[in-house]
């Protein structure tokens, strides 16, 4: 009997696909993360506003924490910049030959912006 | 039983010839293709330079010139009626391929592009002519893919990864084949009205070879075991430009584009051996020249290789010396970029395997075993003939490298292998289907699969301390050393004795794998038994031929001898250590043998 064709999550992760593959994984994770974050947030706010539930307040405590802000901020920033790369390459397929360069360009935009933001968030958290 | 199949026409082998045959046969007969590889893995795919057709897209060219060049290239051993047929058919065949979608490279006018190749000349001026229709340097790849695509389009039935191990002959007619399914080791019996063998070559007999692992001459060996002779097996082409040590082919197209062979002294030595066409002489001539250079100590650094120099500056320098011109009369020049476009795969091979960039560095090359001129004897209708009187075995056809319709004689001209497989593959398909229309199935005996099963069981149950791999290596070495580019009586006798010793040792092999699922070790062993049989036939046929002709360069008889040896060898395998040799005349129509000068 041949083995089943299934590729496990870990086996897939171990594949050496390089930068673009990791960008895709991060894009999915950040996208799903944002969806979850926004979904819960809206739901909690709704419950608070309509029924005076405590859920909204409880969730807001987590959301206000500086560590969580860093994660959310990274997710949004990465998803946005990586999404822009995908859009540009999809609309101009001729540029796909420079996929590897595009990944480098992407990170060179993300790193300084995210670095600055993290610096601000952390100094603010420590100072305030 | 599910392991019994019936088709009107069976094609064994799915390379160029097999797929071409299948395409044509399936138009009017119930046809199946049996192949030990997925069709697109076939060795046709590695052909590089081009397929010749005198369509003259750049300059005047005629099928008669192609015919004469082929006959001359064959050292007058080719049957001239078949050569003429092939060369006349080739333009139509090439157009047909184009109509099937084959993506040929193009001339500025949008026609099929052509390039010069070894031995292709304008018969009036003696100058090289552009006759090889090409698709960059992957013409064979395109042919194989195109034919496979068309087979899919026409819903041809395929049995992929089925190894045919026996031919069934009933009442003197071909009645089917026996095959083993690689995935399960089950034996399948295929009944058929007509069988077409298109099983390819057997270059794996030699150590340095351009041939695939799969090229083990299965079809010829199967036929031999069923009492069918093999024709002209002593003629095996050594291609002058194989990558040093690996044997991977560097197309003659490189020299067609202007590349030259250089020895240790930096000389272009081919002008001493072939003053007119120089590096574009036919392959046997160039391979021998290389051997002489290396023997006389002019190999690079004294080693057994030479340089193939295709740097633009070298090409342009020698093109100027030769006075080579473009079709419009301007001097011929080439840039690195153009080279990259015309020979992308070659450049990739050199970068991958040698770390050499052909645009800036010369490529180390040596002769490499390349193509079997000999094979299963057939007539012009591709029907297999079984004796020197050309008696046909009804229902059995052969085409492509495994067949010897003898269009290549003593030495094949570059690009003619593709012409051969397209033209004769097509006609094998047409003729077999036509035969099947008027024929009945021969009843198969109950024990049809027994002979095949015996052969495999003998290998499976063999006990001893011999390794298949080791026997293979020893065979390849002795054949390369003694039945190679240059041969001596003593060496050939030695090789023959060694092969017989190896055949004896083969009876004591021991396999590790006793399984049934993809037992590739079992099949490799069976393939080696084929190679050993063919090596024996080759060495025996060569030892008997007391002359030098085409690819058979016998140092003890360095001259061609048309009085005694202008004839085809037929070799039968009769029991142990017994090769029976008989001869049949060469068909000569228009061109009387004369001295061959390039």
């Amino acid at each position: 009997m041949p083995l089943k064709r299934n590729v496990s999550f870990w086996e897939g992760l171990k594949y050496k696909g390089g930068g673009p593959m990791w960008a895709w994984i991060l894009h999915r994770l950040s996208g799903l993360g944002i969806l979850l974050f926004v979904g819960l947030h809206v739901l909690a706010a709704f419950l608070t506003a309509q029924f005076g539930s405590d859920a909204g307040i409880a969730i807001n405590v987590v959301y206000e924490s500086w560590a969580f802000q860093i994660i959310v901020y990274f997710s949004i920033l990465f998803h946005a910049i990586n999404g822009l790369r995908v859009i540009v390459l999809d609309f101009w397929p001729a540029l796909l030959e420079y996929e590897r360069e595009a990944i480098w360009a992407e990170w060179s935009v993300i790193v300084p912006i995210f670095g600055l933001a993290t610096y601000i968030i952390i100094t603010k958290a420590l100072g305030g | 039983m599910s392991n019994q199949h019936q088709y009107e026409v069976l094609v064994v082998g799915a390379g160029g010839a097999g797929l071409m045959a299948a395409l044509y046969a399936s138009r009017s007969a119930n046809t199946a293709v049996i192949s030990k590889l997925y069709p697109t893995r076939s060795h046709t795919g590695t052909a590089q330079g081009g397929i010749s057709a005198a369509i003259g897209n750049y300059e005047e060219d005629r099928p008669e010139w192609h015919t004469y060049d082929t006959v001359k290239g064959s050292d007058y051993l080719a049957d001239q009626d078949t050569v003429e047929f092939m060369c006349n058919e080739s333009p139509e065949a090439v157009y047909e391929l184009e109509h099937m979608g084959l993506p040929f490279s193009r001339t500025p006018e949008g026609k099929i592009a052509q390039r010069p190749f070894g031995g292709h000349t304008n018969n009036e001026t003696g100058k090289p002519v552009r006759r090889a229709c090409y698709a960059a340097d992957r013409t064979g790849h395109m042919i194989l893919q195109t034919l496979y695509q068309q087979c899919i389009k026409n819903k041809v039935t395929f049995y992929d990864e089925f190894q045919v191990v026996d031919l069934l002959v009933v009442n003197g007619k071909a009645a089917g084949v026996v095959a083993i399914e690689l995935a399960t080791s089950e034996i399948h019996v295929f009944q058929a009205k007509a069988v077409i063998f298109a099983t390819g070559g057997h270059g794996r007999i030699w150590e340095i070879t351009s041939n695939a692992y799969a090229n083990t001459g299965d079809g010829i060996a199967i036929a031999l075991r069923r009492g069918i002779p093999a024709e002209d097996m002593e003629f095996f082409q050594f291609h002058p430009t194989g990558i040093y040590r690996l044997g991977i082919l560097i197309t003659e197209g490189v020299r067609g584009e202007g590349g030259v062979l250089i020895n240790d002294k930096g000389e272009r030595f081919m002008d001493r051996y072939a003053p007119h066409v120089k590096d574009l002489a036919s392959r046997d001539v160039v391979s021998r020249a290389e051997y002489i250079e290396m023997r006389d100590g002019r190999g690079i650094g004294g080693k057994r290789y030479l340089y193939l120099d295709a740097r633009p500056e070298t090409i342009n320098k020698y093109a100027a010396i030769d006075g080579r011109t473009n079709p419009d009369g301007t001097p011929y020049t080439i840039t690195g970029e153009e080279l990259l476009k015309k020979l992308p795969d070659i450049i990739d091979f050199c970068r991958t395997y040698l770390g050499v960039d052909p645009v800036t560095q010369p490529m180390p090359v040596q002769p490499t075993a390349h193509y079997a001129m000999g094979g299963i004897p057939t007539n012009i209708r591709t029907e297999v003939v079984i004796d020197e009187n050309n008696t046909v075995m009804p229902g059995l056809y052969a085409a492509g490298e495994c067949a010897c319709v003898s269009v290549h004689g003593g030495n094949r001209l570059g690009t003619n292998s593709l012409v051969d497989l397209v033209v004769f593959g097509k006609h094998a398909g047409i003729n077999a289907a036509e035969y099947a229309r008027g024929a009945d199935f021969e009843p198969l005996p109950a024990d049809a699969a027994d002979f095949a099963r015996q052969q495999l069981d003998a290998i499976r149950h063999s006990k001893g301390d011999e390794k298949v791999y080791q026997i293979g290596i020893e065979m390849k070495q002795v054949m390369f050393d003694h039945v190679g580019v240059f041969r001596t009586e003593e060496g050939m006798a030695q090789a023959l004795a060694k092969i017989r010793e190896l055949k004896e040792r083969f009876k004591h092999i021991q396999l590790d794998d006793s399984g049934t699922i993809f037992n590739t070790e079992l099949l490799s062993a069976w393939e080696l038994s084929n190679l050993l049989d063919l090596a024996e036939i080759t060495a025996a046929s060569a030892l008997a031929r007391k002359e030098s002709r085409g690819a058979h360069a016998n140092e003890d008889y360095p001259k061609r001898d048309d009085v005694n040896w202008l004839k085809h060898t037929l070799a039968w395998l009769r029991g142990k250590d017994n090769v029976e040799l008989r001869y049949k005349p060469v068909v000569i129509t228009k061109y009387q043998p004369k001295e061959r000068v390039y």
Partner: protein
Amino acid sequence: MRARSIPKIFSFEYIMWLFMRISGLAMYVFALTGLTIALIMGARTQMDMGTLLRWTFFPIGTHVTSSDILVLEQWINPFWSIMQYLTIIFATMHGTNGLRMVIEDYMDAGWGVHVLRGLLLIAWLFMLLVAFNLIQTTGAV
């Protein structure tokens, strides 16, 4: 060279693919507009990242008030109202469709896909209702 062309093909997959890209670009427009105006309106002196994000992406009343600046009247106009509705529509569609793509990657054709799409449609509509309700009740529009 003679130009070859065929009629355009509008398959569900193509439309969703195009939508993901267009909505992605739309989010850039909304976010950058929101961010710019938020900075003009005082965020530059109130550089709290969380606040900035809230302002950028969804400038509704509660978000604005939680930033300690009482500039509520500036936000009460139809422009912000339209921004809010468009943002919520694009964002939830982009997100829901993203989720659909991720799940469908692992699904075959058949009724399962339709059930999933139905469920996601319901979830999306629910999210829209909730968000609209929030805008209505807390948006101070």
